[in-house]
Structures are given as C-alpha cells and as structure tokens.
C-alpha cells in the first residue's frame, strides 16, 4: 500500500490526535469505485467525500474508476469513507497498489519520447521535402548540404533520446543471446543515422535522417499503444482485486463492534454478518441460524440452512438472519486455499504463451540480417568497394525495419479492446485477445453462466392472483431467492403487493404471519404442513393458510435468454461446445437441453473441471472456459482463454482474461468474433508489410533506393497498416468457421 504521509507538524509541537484543530497531518489514499459511469457520478462522489469532516481533498479519475482522497487519519477512518460512498450508492474499496504506477510511468515516458520524436520528424520532413523538391528545380548543392546539416542537428539528439527503449531492449536481448524485434530496429535506426552523418560530411545525397526519425516515431506509437493496453488491463485487474476486499464488522471481547477491512481479519476474530451481506471469511457460525446462498462456490442455486457450529465460506451470501461468524485459521485445508493452489498450478502452464508478434520476430529478425549481409557481400564481390556496399546494405536494413510488426499489432489490439469495452467486455490480460482467437472449443459452467443464477417462478400460470399477492406479501420481507422470485412474478403481473404485518422468518423453513383468517405460511413442505396439511404433489415452495389446501410453487433457474442462440452460433461456426457443472444431473441435463448443448457432465468438482480441460487439451483442442463460480476459478486459469460474467466470484474475475457485463451471453460471441477478426487483421497487416517489402527490398539490394523512396515507403506502409487496423472499430463481423483448423 502506497500511502504518502505528509507530516507538516511544526517543530516542537507535539501531535495531539484528539485535537480537531490540528489538521497538519494528511494521508492520501486511492479508492476503487465500481459503479461510476459519467460526469454526474464523478461530481457526486467528490461532493460526498468532501462533505466528510477531516477530508481535505477528493479527486476522481473517471478513466481509471478511482478516487484519490486526502484526509486526516486522526479524524477519519478509511472504512468510514467507503461507508459514506456506500450510502450514496457507490461500491467502493481501498485500492491494491501493486506495480501499476510503474506501468503508468512507463507509458508517460513513452509518450514524452513520442512527443520529441514527433517534433523532430515533422521538422526533418519539412527540410527533406524541400531538398526533394529542390532536386527537380534549381536548389544548389550548398543549400542542400545546409538542409542536411540542419536535419542532422534535429534528428540526432531526438533519435538518441527517443529511440532509447529500442536500444535498451535490443541490448538486453543480445546479452541473453537471443534475437527480438528490437535488434533489427536498433540496427536499422543507428546505422542509418551514422551513415547519414558520414554522407552529410561528404556532401552526397544518401542522407536518411528523415527515414530514421520517422521510423522511430511510428515504432514509438506502436510501443505506446501496447503499453496503454497493458496499463488498462492491469488497472482492470487491480480494481477487481480491490473490490474483493469488503469491510467486516468485528466484535471485540467486550462486545463492542468496529468496522475493519476484510484484509485485516485474523483467525479467531468474531465477525457480525447482517442478513443480505456477503460473508467475508471462512469460518464457523458461533451464534445464530441462517440460510446461506453458496451458489458462487458450489454452483448450487438453492440456499442451504446453516445452524450454529456449521461452517461457512468466504464469498457466500447470508440470506435470512444476522449471524456471528468466528474466522477459522487460514490453514491449507480451507476451500479458498485449495482453490488458490489449483489456480497457481494452472497458471504456470499458461505462462509459456508466446505472442504473435514475438513468434513473427523470431523468423523475421534473422531473415532481415541475412538479407543485409547478403547485399553487402554481393556488392563487395561485384567490386563496388566497402563504402557503396555498406550504403546499399544499410538501405536494405532501413527498408525492412519491421514497422508492421511493431505498429500494426498494437494498433489492432487497441481498436479491438476499445470495441469490446463498448460492448461491456473488459479485457484484463494484454495477450488475452490472441489466446481467445485461437480457441476452438467452448466449455460453459451452468449456474450464473448459462443460467442467470437466480430462480424464476415457472408455474405462475397455475396460481391465481389472490394467492400470488398473498404469498408475495410474505415474500417481500425475505431475501431468499425463492421469495424474490415470487415477488418478481407478482410484480410482473401488476399486482399490488403490500408487506404483511408481523412476518417471522425461520431459517431453513420459511415465513409465517398471523392474519384474520388464521396463520399464513410460505416455505418448505414440512413447514406449511404445520398449518395446512400437505397436499399431494411436489413443489419447491408451498403457500398455505390454516384450513385451506396449500398451493405449490415451482422454480427454474432460467437459462439466459440468448443462450440457445449463442450456442447455435458457436456450433454453426464449428466450435465444440461443452457444459460442465458441479450441480445435480437432472438440472444439468435440462439446462443442456434448453441451451442445445449435446455434451455435458454433471456433479464435477473443481479439480474434476481441470481434468476435463486437460483431457480436451491433450486431444489437441484449445479451450475457452466461461464460468463464474469460485469452483470455476482454477478451470478459468487452466483454460487457454477464459471469460467470466461481472456477477462472478471475485477470484474468478481475477482469474479470467476478460469480464463481461449484462444479462446476456452475447458478449461471449462478440469477444470471439473481435478476437478472431483482430488476429486476421494482424496477419493482413503482416501481408501488407511483406508485399511492400517484396517490391522495395529487391530495389534496395540492387542499390536503387533513394532517401525519398525509403521515407515514402516507410510512411505509407505504416499509415496503411494503421488505417487497416482502424477498420476493426466499425466493421460488421461474422464468426468465421473454425473447421479445418483442427
């Protein structure tokens, strides 16, 4: 955590924490704010924070979804800032400061170098165009030499400063005895500069300062774009990590309660969890009985009743009653630790992925050097002398400088990421797009991924308005998923639902309320039997009034509205589609049937999911895992690429390459489409670059390349690949077939 402490206490004056008048101490802290979308949110957040006594400054960064707050730690606690934002309707958390600032600094540094290179390139081009135009008219040789000297004066310091990132990276690669993209780049730029200086001194026309500085400029654009994607991805990942840390109400020995951040929790602490809150720790219930929604962990939609002494896991939601949980020791046996171990093992396998541009560089760099050497040797053999031979060899190096590789791929990635962002998909891994593009098999999780993860009343047609309204009047005071479904059904029918008086909720059983006509109950079969006597038939939930036959309610975990459509589209494009779930067999079978998935597996544990992925991997498939639960996290990390809905468990969002928002599954399709298109576009860009090399390299080897041709070819090819990349922003995309790739 990076807290800048500014101690401005005057010498000799003791700091008194109790005195509100001494405001010399200030601490600056970064808060992640999840649901901030526009300028109005920004103003209300700043106003809300500044209204807290003790806060001296609050400034929101809308792009980063963060707020920087300066406050007096003696008067304000971090948790109270978060609570104040919570009351204003914003979900906030303390930011986890990792290496993110270093990335931002690197992007700024590249931008500064880019500015210098741009300034130099513009001025050198101005001079060069005059020289080229002068060759056709009456410019005398003295003026041309003067212009060349001016170009040298501008270009050389600019190159020395701006091209440093390439030089450094090339040196490192050479030290490690390997070749990367920056070796031919550095060689091309530095040789062109040195030779141009030599030719300027001799007063010839073989001066390539313009080409060298333009090259630096275009390549820096690529480098900067690449860095920006990285910063964005890292920021998204860190924000998710920060939001994971929720506050917890800790009960001290003497019974007093205080709020602490979840990260500060220690084993043995007693935590009060209100109804509706997420449980912040793995632990044991020491006081109270409740229902717990563990769908994020087990994939099971139905809440479980947990009594005093029962274990609960971090990330589950406490539904019915406030409870006190004692945090258990975070030893290796906890569920989270096991999941984290599986995830780590899975991630190691993925670390070996080599990006497209690097794979291309491994073949391109040696080829360029061989061509340059061949030109030099060829001209030497032909008896041209070392000076002319070297000039031609350098021209080849300048011409072949891998602009397309270094500029086109980042440009494609930036357009692709921003297009996906517009569709509600936040890309978290910089190389995620490339891995997504290679996928040929999609594995879905059930609960919360293919389905909405919340039950919906399925037999609403069989229930009359009066019964539904009465049931809803009980249900309105409960957070149980079934109660919410009943209420939603009543509201959908336009019924006027008023909360019943004196509703009592019994965890694991149901709701009851007294009324003029006797006691009314809504809950499990045995609970309702107590007043109404059980009717024949099955039901997940019953409603009964004393002396009347009870009414059954049935629920479904509704499949997302476009799931079948998305699956059909994937199958049509030749993807293998699987459903792997931890839930019961009959539920999984029904969902698979509804979504149109033929291959499915039920009752699979987290390590079982990894086994399924491994089996697919060993049969040569590249798998995209789409999942949301804590039980999916290891599988998300193990898969070739992974997506997760924004409703997912925090750890799953951290493991996934991208997170998508909304109630639909469409973003999965869009991500695949954009990834495939961007990969296609990157290859198209290589083709453009190769086509231009195919024409200009023979010319350069033959010694026919002039500075004008070199500069033009360089700029035109760079602009061509960038414009091509920009097409991705608006193009209508179709998911092309993956058949034939397997």
């Amino acid at each position, binding site marked *: 955590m990076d807290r800048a402490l500014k101690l401005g206490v005057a010498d000799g004056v003791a700091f008194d924490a109790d005195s509100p008048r001494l405001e010399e101490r200030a601490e600056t802290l970064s808060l992640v704010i999840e649901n901030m979308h526009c*300028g109005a949110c920004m103003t209300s957040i700043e*106003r809300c924070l500044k209204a807290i006594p003790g806060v001296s400054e609050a400034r929101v960064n*809308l*792009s980063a979804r963060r707020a920087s707050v300066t406050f007096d730690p003696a008067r304000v606690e971090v948790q109270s800032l978060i609570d104040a934002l919570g009351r204003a309707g914003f979900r906030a958390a303390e930011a986890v400061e990792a290496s993110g600032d270093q990335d931002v600094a690197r992007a700024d540094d590249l*931008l500064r170098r880019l500015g210098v290179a741009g*300034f130099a390139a513009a001025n050198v081009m101005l001079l060069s165009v005059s020289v080229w135009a002068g060759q056709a008219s009456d410019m005398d040789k003295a003026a041309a030499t003067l212009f060349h000297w001016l170009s040298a004066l501008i270009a050389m310091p600019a190159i020395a400063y701006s091209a440093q990132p390439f030089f450094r990276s090339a040196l490192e690669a050479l030290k490690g005895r390997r070749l990367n993209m920056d070796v031919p780049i550095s060689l091309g730029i530095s040789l062109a500069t040195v030779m141009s200086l030599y030719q300027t001194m001799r007063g010839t026309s073989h001066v390539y300062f313009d080409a060298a500085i333009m090259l630096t400029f275009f390549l820096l654009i690529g480098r900067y774009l690449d860095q920006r994607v990285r910063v964005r991805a890292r920021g998204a990942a860190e924000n998710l990590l920060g939001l994971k840390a929720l506050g917890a109400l800790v009960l001290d020995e003497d019974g007093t309660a205080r709020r602490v951040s979840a990260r500060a929790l220690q084993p043995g602490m007693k935590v009060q969890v209100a109804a509706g809150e997420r449980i912040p720790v793995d632990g044991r219930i020491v006081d109270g009985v409740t229902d717990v929604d563990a769908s994020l962990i087990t994939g099971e939609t139905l809440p479980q009743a947990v009594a005093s002494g029962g274990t609960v896991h971090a990330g589950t939601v406490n539904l019915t009653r406030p409870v006190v949980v004692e945090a258990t020791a975070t030893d290796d046996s906890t569920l989270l630790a096991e999941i984290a171990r599986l995830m780590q093992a899975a991630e190691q396998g993925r670390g070996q992925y080599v990006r497209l541009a690097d794979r291309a560089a491994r073949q391109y760099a040696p080829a360029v050097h061989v061509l340059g050497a061949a030109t030099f040797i060829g001209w030497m053999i032909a008896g041209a002398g070392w000076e002319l031979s070297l000039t031609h060899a350098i021209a080849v190096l300048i011409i072949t400088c891998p602009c397309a590789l270094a500029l086109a791929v980042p440009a494609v990635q930036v357009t692709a990421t921003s297009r996906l962002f517009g569709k509600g998909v936040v890309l978290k891994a910089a190389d995620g797009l490339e891995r997504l593009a290679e996928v040929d098999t999609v594995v879905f999780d059930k609960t919360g991924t293919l389905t909405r993860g919340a039950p919906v009343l399925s037999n609403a047609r069989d229930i009359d308005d009066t019964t539904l309204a009465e049931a809803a009047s009980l249900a309105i005071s409960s957070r149980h998923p079934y109660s919410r479904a009943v209420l939603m059904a009543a509201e959908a029918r336009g019924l006027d639902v008023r909360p019943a008086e004196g509703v009592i909720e019994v965890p694991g059983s149901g709701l009851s309320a007294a009324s003029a006509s006797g006691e009314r109950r809504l809950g499990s079969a045995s609970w309702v039997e107590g007043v109404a006597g059980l009717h024949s038939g099955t039901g997940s939930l019953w409603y009964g009034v004393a002396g009347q036959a009870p009414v059954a309610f049935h629920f479904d975990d509704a499949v997302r509205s476009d799931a079948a459509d998305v699956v059909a589209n994937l199958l049509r494009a030749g993807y293998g589609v699987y459903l792997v779930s931890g839930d019961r067999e009959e539920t999984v079978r029904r969902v698979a049937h509804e979504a149109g998935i033929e291959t499915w597996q039920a009752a699979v544990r987290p390590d079982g999911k990894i086994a399924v992925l491994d089996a697919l991997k060993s049969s040569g498939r590249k798998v995209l895992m789409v999942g949301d639960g804590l039980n999916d996290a290891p599988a998300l990390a193990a898969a070739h690429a992974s997506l997760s809905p924004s409703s997912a468990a925090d750890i799953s969002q951290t493991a996934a390459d991208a997170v998508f928002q909304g109630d639909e599954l469409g973003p999965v399709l869009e991500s695949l489409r954009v990834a495939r298109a961007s990969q296609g576009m990157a290859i198209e860009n290589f083709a453009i670059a190769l086509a231009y090399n195919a024409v200009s390299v023979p010319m350069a080897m033959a010694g026919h390349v002039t500075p004008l041709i070199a500069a033009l070819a360089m700029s035109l090819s760079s602009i061509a690949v960038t414009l091509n990349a920009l097409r991705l922003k608006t193009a209508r995309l179709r998911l092309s077939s993956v058949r034939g790739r397997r």
Partner: protein
Amino acid sequence: MTALAWLIPCALALGAVGLVAFIWALNSGQFQDLEGSGWRAISDDEDDKPQP
C-alpha cells in the same frame, strides 16, 4: 536564400513551443483522465478556485 535565415529558426521555434507545451501538459498529469476532464468542463458546480 536570406529568407531561410529567419524562416527556419522561426519554424523550429514554433515547433519547440508546441513540444514544450506538450511536455508541460504531460508532466502536469493532463493526460491521466481524458474521460473525466471532458465531463469536468461542462460540470456546473466544479470548483475551479484555488484551494485556500
């Protein structure tokens, strides 16, 4: 030719002014929140007064 003696320095000086302005803007963090700055410009109750 004599025109060049002052035209070229003029062009370079103007370019340099632009470059210095860019670096100043970068160092003062003006590129850090491109989205938010747009909103701040149209916000009514933005407090532009320097902090006391």
